[in-house]
């Protein structure tokens, strides 16, 4: 009678677009609630078994729908509000559900009914639950009319903000910014006062929450209040006694600086930012480094030139590796966003010397962070500078003792390729690639394989055949399966790049040769290669060269090889023509279907039913 899709999709998906209409219908179909007395439904929510309780809560919308909007408001919600004492997982599900409940209580007009249970959830100890409750509250705040917002929502925020235990106060911090824009100026003044109080709360948890919402709150405030209120709060939080609070102020700094007119930045923001960049705690300095591009955009080119350049130099030379790595990650973005008129000079005289030092840093994370962005500098500096200044650094990093550094260089070759062409590097590139290809860590080998198609494209077919082909073949017999698998996939991509003819001459013979290998795993690799190559190589090569080998392998003494033959035949079927299928493939599969091994039989039958059912349709 109905579309099965309905069963599984969340109700809100369907209901949301039909707000007004749906309310009307729900109201008028309230009649059959006699079927489900609330007690029965509530029993479901009280089941002793947590898992069952959780399932019921997750389907709370179904229950609410069965009750109708009025009884949901008058009976279900009070019950939920009174019984909030449960496993965190159940509470989390409840907090999430209630965010989508507006419709089920009768639409925006009644949305404030959802506030009491969410208020209790917002005071729970477990952070995840609390955050979800706040998220839901923020969501439904948008559905409140301006009047309801002042009558119902804002008092709730105030109650939370002046709660005894830190949990409610932390939750309040996230709610100010959603109601501020839509309330009267007296209420606005109260909200600002509450936020101020929380910024100097005596528990660090609350101050952290306030600091993390400072930027968001600043955005909804009128500019005058940003200058008068926010700046003093920002300054206070940025010099908090705990570094966990100070570092959050750095984030707020970005939003605040964006809001203020350029002429005020120097006096209002910069003293604090300078202080943060030299904070005695590395966590704060790390945060500055991590947010450097955002800060740079927010303060504009002049301050960048005068203040941020020296600050960035210091961060690149910081005594903690964590900070240096975070700063190194930003080198390219920072340089890119420098004002054009002085970009080159700044990079050459201030940034590059630091970068040069980082190339031989003692910490590998710093070096690999640098290696992941350093190539990007070549587009900014142009050909001559790249050859003269950057190339030696690339080459040094290509020889770095840490594989990750080399890998990061290789993975970004395309940037250099555009500027100076890859030939400049190829002499150093090759040994680096070879070494990575044979690295003891298989994850490193895997990573380099993934760059092979890219490298092949940039180095050209000749270079590839000469230097890299052997590597690609060697991976096929790596002792780690993931490498062999990646190697087959790599071959496919190479064939897509260089064409079927190239495949026929260079790859296919070697792959097929492995079919006679004494090691059955190597023989299987042949099959895996055929699986992925057949399509790229086309019908002729597949039928003439690959198929005979596959068919021959159906007599292999190892069952694993035989059932992979069945799988391969199914896989390459679509590439073959129907006569080959009927005359060659079918008999072999039929023979395999009578194999003594259970698995071989199974896969052979699978292949027969998969392939020939579709073929028959075609031939008919």
């Amino acid at each position, binding site marked *: 009678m109905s579309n099965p899709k309905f069963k599984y999709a969340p109700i809100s998906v*369907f209901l949301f677009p*039909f707000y007004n*209409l*749906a309310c009307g219908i729900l109201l008028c179909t309230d009649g059959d609630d006699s079927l489900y007395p609330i007690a029965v439904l509530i029993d479901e929510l009280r089941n002793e078994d947590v898992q069952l309780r959780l399932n019921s809560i997750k389907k709370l919308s179904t229950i609410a729908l069965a009750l109708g909007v009025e009884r949901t408001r008058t009976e279900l919600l009070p019950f939920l509000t009174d019984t909030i004492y449960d496993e965190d997982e159940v509470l989390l599900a409840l907090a999430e559900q209630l965010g989508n409940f507006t419709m089920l209580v009768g639409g925006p007009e009644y949305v404030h009914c959802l506030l009491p249970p969410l208020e209790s959830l917002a005071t729970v100890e477990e952070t995840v639950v609390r955050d979800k409750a706040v998220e839901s509250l923020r969501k439904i705040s948008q559905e409140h009319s301006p009047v309801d917002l002042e009558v119902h929502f804002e008092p709730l925020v105030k109650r939370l903000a002046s709660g005894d235990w830190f949990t409610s106060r932390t939750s309040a911090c996230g709610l100010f910014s959603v109601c501020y824009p839509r309330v009267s100026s007296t209420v606005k003044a109260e909200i600002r006062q509450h936020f101020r109080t929380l910024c100097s709360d005596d*528990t660090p948890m609350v101050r952290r929450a306030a600091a993390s919402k400072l930027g968001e709150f600043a955005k909804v405030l009128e500019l005058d209040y940003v200058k008068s209120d926010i700046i003093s709060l920002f300054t206070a939080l940025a010099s908090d006694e705990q570094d966990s609070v100070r570092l959050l102020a750095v984030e707020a700094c970005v939003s605040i600086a964006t809001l203020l007119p350029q002429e005020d930045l120097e006096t209002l923001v910069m003293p604090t930012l300078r202080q943060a960049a030299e904070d005695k705690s590395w966590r704060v300095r790390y945060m500055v480094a991590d947010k450097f591009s955002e800060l740079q955009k927010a303060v504009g080119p002049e301050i960048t030139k005068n203040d941020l350049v020296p600050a960035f130099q210091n961060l690149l030379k910081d005594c903690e590796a964590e900070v240096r790595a975070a700063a190194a990650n930003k080198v390219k973005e920072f340089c890119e966003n420098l004002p054009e008129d002085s970009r080159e000079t700044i990079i050459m005289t201030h940034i590059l010397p630091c970068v040069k030092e980082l190339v031989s840093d003692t910490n590998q994370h710093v070096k690999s962070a640098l290696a992941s962005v350093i190539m990007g500098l070549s587009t900014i500096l142009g050909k001559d500078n790249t050859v003269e200044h950057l190339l030696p650094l690339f080459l040094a990093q290509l020889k770095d003792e840490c594989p990750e550094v080399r890998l990061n260089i290789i993975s970004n070759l395309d940037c250099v390729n555009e500027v100076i062409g890859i030939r400049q590097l190829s002499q150093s590139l090759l040994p680096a690639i070879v070494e990575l290809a044979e690295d003891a860590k298989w994850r490193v080998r895997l990573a380099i394989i993934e760059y092979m198609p890219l490298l092949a494209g940039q180095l050209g077919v000749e270079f590839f055949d000469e230097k890299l082909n052997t590597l690609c073949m*060697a991976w096929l017999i790596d002792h780690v399966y993931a490498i062999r698998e990646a190697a087959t996939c790599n071959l496919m991509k190479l064939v897509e790049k260089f064409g079927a003819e190239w495949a026929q001459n260079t790859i296919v013979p070697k792959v097929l040769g492995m079919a006679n290998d*004494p090691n059955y795993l190597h023989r299987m690799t042949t099959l895996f290669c055929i699986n992925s190559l057949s399509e790229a190589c086309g019908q002729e090569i597949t039928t003439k060269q690959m198929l005979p080998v596959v068919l021959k392998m159906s007599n292999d003494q190892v069952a694993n090889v035989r059932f992979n033959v069945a799988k391969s035949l199914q896989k390459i079927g679509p590439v073959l023509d129907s006569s080959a299928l009927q005359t060659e493939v079918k008999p072999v599969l039929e023979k395999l279907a009578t194999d003594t091994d259970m698995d071989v039989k199974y896969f052979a039958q699978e292949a027969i039913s998969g392939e020939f059912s579709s073929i028959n349709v075609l031939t008919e």
Partner: protein
Amino acid sequence: METTKLPPTSPSSPTTGFSVPSAEKVDGFPRRSMRRARQRRSHSSSQFRYQSSQVELTPLPLLKDAPVAELHDLFCKKLQQCCVLFDFLDCVADLKGKEIKRAALNELVESVATSRGVLIEPLYPEAIKMISVNIFRTLPPSENPEFDPEEDEPTLEASWPHLQLVYEFFLRFLESPDFQPSMAKRYVDQKFVLQLLELFDSEDPREREYLKTILHRVYGKLLGLRAYIRKQINNIFLRFIYETEHFNGVAELLEILGSIINGFALPLKSEHKQFLVRVLIPLHTAKSLSIFHAQLAYCVVQFMEKDATVTEYVRHTFSVVKGCKSPVMFLGEIEEILDVIEPSQFIRVQEPLFKQISACISSPHFQVAERALYFWNNEYILSLIEENCQVILPLVFATLYRVSKEHWNQTIVSLIYNVLKTFMEMNSKLFDDLTASYKVEKQKEMKRERERTELWRGLEEQQERRLQTLGEASRNQKNLQERGESAQPSSPQTALPEHPDLDLSGAPSTT
């Protein structure tokens, strides 16, 4: 340093014939030993930010040779000398300076510990300054981001040769008979204590050990700081539980608290009860519970011994701690608590307690079940059970009966038989009644289960029906609109976007 590179397997020619060494035959591929001995991590240190101009230290005369008149002056100079910090990562840098400072520190320790009358008022700010400069620093990022205190070697503090002496000096200073709390409190203030508490996150266990003793002394001697210290420890714990799940010094702080709780006055203040319920009990849910469980259990038991009525609060344990990551540890703590519980208090907690215990007994993990069943070996607990057999037996009977038939582990099965036998001896009448009603109960349960499924099926069908009505209604409305008639003037047209999934009724009902 060169990365160890192993010879590549010969790629072109897999071993001819079948002469693969037998040890490698498992998958036919030559195995390479990939495991390298774990590299010993170098002992890095918090990196002090140096004073830009490094002062050259010159040795001062020995304290013991100084004439009494000049003693304090010299003491003060030595304290100032010890404010100079050295780079310990470079172990050969400025060896002479390091040695001078070490000797000076040794002398200071010795002098504070042995001679009387050294600690006069002007020395307090100098001493506290020297201590602050040396010990307060932002702890460095952990060498190992996934540092597991149970498995990994901690990173040790490189400047320990000096740092230890500074801590030693601080400790002797606090313990000196000349120590005057009224003078010290001007310098050892809230800010100082807060920084001291932050150091408890140090990875170096030696440093935490010193800090523990020192904080304990500070708590003991500077009464004005007590409430503040407790509050800040609360904050550290709450942050640990709900925000970071990382703090190296939890065990040490709990140890201090254990003795603090011991000294609480009766009746317990609500602040302390709140601490038990909102901090100590939630600590049980931490992932790294095993590291500080002993200290935590001690604190909880201390509370119990202080004031038996806190059982009411410990009751929370049984529900809150359901989320506990290691039930075996939790059960151990429950047993410790039960050992000191008053029979009258026991009655108040027995219901939630035995529900929890029966849940543990039915755990498929035999260690958990076993630990729970061991409760019946504890004589005091057994006597409590016997007294309340009427209540407890019905709570656990069904579980015991079921698990005795189903559990995979023979030890558990035989332990359960013993427990059942004990119960039979305690109250054979009740036991027989329960056995008789077991089947009936079981059937009732199955019936309830069927009803539940039925209920949900009904609910979901109803939901579908309503959605369908909705879908049709929206179609009707759309049709109407297409004809240019406004069906419901109240609903704006934009509220009705076409929803692909709602195309369900096949033929739209026409007007």
